[in-house]
């Protein structure tokens, strides 16, 4: 469970989404960095679909207002 103090919204995140969010907390990362981090970590996804899956997660997090896309 996650409470966003900016929006006042409560979110129930999947384990993977919450790990991606944790990873992004320290500093901004590119899609590729996030995907390779997901692959290298002990998550269960180990296929080519992981990059699309990361895209979906990121898009969802943006839609919820938890992260913002920026130019690196």
């Amino acid at each position, binding site marked *: 469970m996650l409470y966003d*103090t*900016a*929006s*006042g919204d409560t979110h129930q995140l999947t384990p993977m989404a919450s790990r991606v969010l944790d990873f992004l907390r320290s500093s901004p990362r590119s899609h590729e960095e996030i995907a390779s981090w997901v692959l290298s970590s002990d998550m269960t996804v180990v296929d080519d679909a992981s990059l699309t899956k990361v895209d979906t997660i990121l898009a969802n997090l943006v839609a919820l*207002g938890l992260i*913002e896309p920026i130019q690196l």
Partner: protein
Amino acid sequence: MKTRPILTKILIHPEAISRLDLNDWDLLIRQARHANLLGRLAYRLTVCQLLDQVPAQPRAHLESALGVAQRQMQAVQWEVNRIVQALDNIQAPIILLKGAAYIMLQLPAAQGRLFSDVDILVPKSQLQAVELALKIHGWITTHHDAYDQRYYRNWMHELPPMQHLTRQTMLDVHHTILPETARFHPDPKKLLEAANSLAGYDGRVKVLAPTDMLLHSATHLFHEGELDHGLRDLTDLDSMLRHFSTQDAAFWEKLLERAKQLDLTRPLYYALRYTSAMLDTPVPPRSMRAAQVGAPGWITLKLIDALFRRAFQPPHPSCSDWLTRPALWMLFARAHWLRMPMHLLVPHLLYKAVIAPREKQA
């Protein structure tokens, strides 16, 4: 003048709560709640470190209002964040007006105050692009009625209010600070030029300069006829006058000068007259005298006095007399008269009076 209502007394002198008994608290909470000032009262007591001295029963209601106001501030900040995000591609700065500006600047006027909607000002040339961008990002137009749409777009100074589909929040998009049909015509360009950038937004988000913010708020209060929250809006003016004049020693002179430039000496005169009369705002005598340039003739002033002094009482039966309702109605009619040429006004009031109620019944 009659003795002051307990709410006004305590807002001016919070330390006087030491003399209140539980009966007084009962009346104070009722007046504050109905004037939409419960949060403001709670905040004043908190700042003065007096909240702990309040008996438990009334304190629970003050704490409740404090929490609600804090949550609302958070919600408005988030709303501004979302609006700025949605208007990313607009080639002009967005100016925050009223409550949203007070909150983003963390002015004392924002504290403990409930705001129901966000107001922004954009150049008229960008209006269509702004409306489109907002629609793409989930805001929808309210007031689908064709007459209302035309009323807002042609005669008023804003798009019909927009509402966000999921958050249900209201947004008013203005392109000038007063209706184009109004008697006063402050040049929006002058306001835009003097606007200050809000820290942290790379110059994309702005707020009116302190003098202009005060004048805008005063013009709304004294010429828009929406006096349901008269006392609350007057406390906003009081709070801003106190705050800005402490921040800037030259504020009073600048304010008068600016009112002349913008042709808004009348609302400024009223603002200084009624804040000092009702809320003891420390207006320097010199500024009060100088503001007389905006005063109406004495007969008008007598009448206006009788109306506004009623409008600025807490809207609670304990503070109204048999003239309160007629006074509020006359102020409403006066605002419409100020806003529109007579040939527009008569059809509009007729339409509102005849057609609108009929549609409501259907």
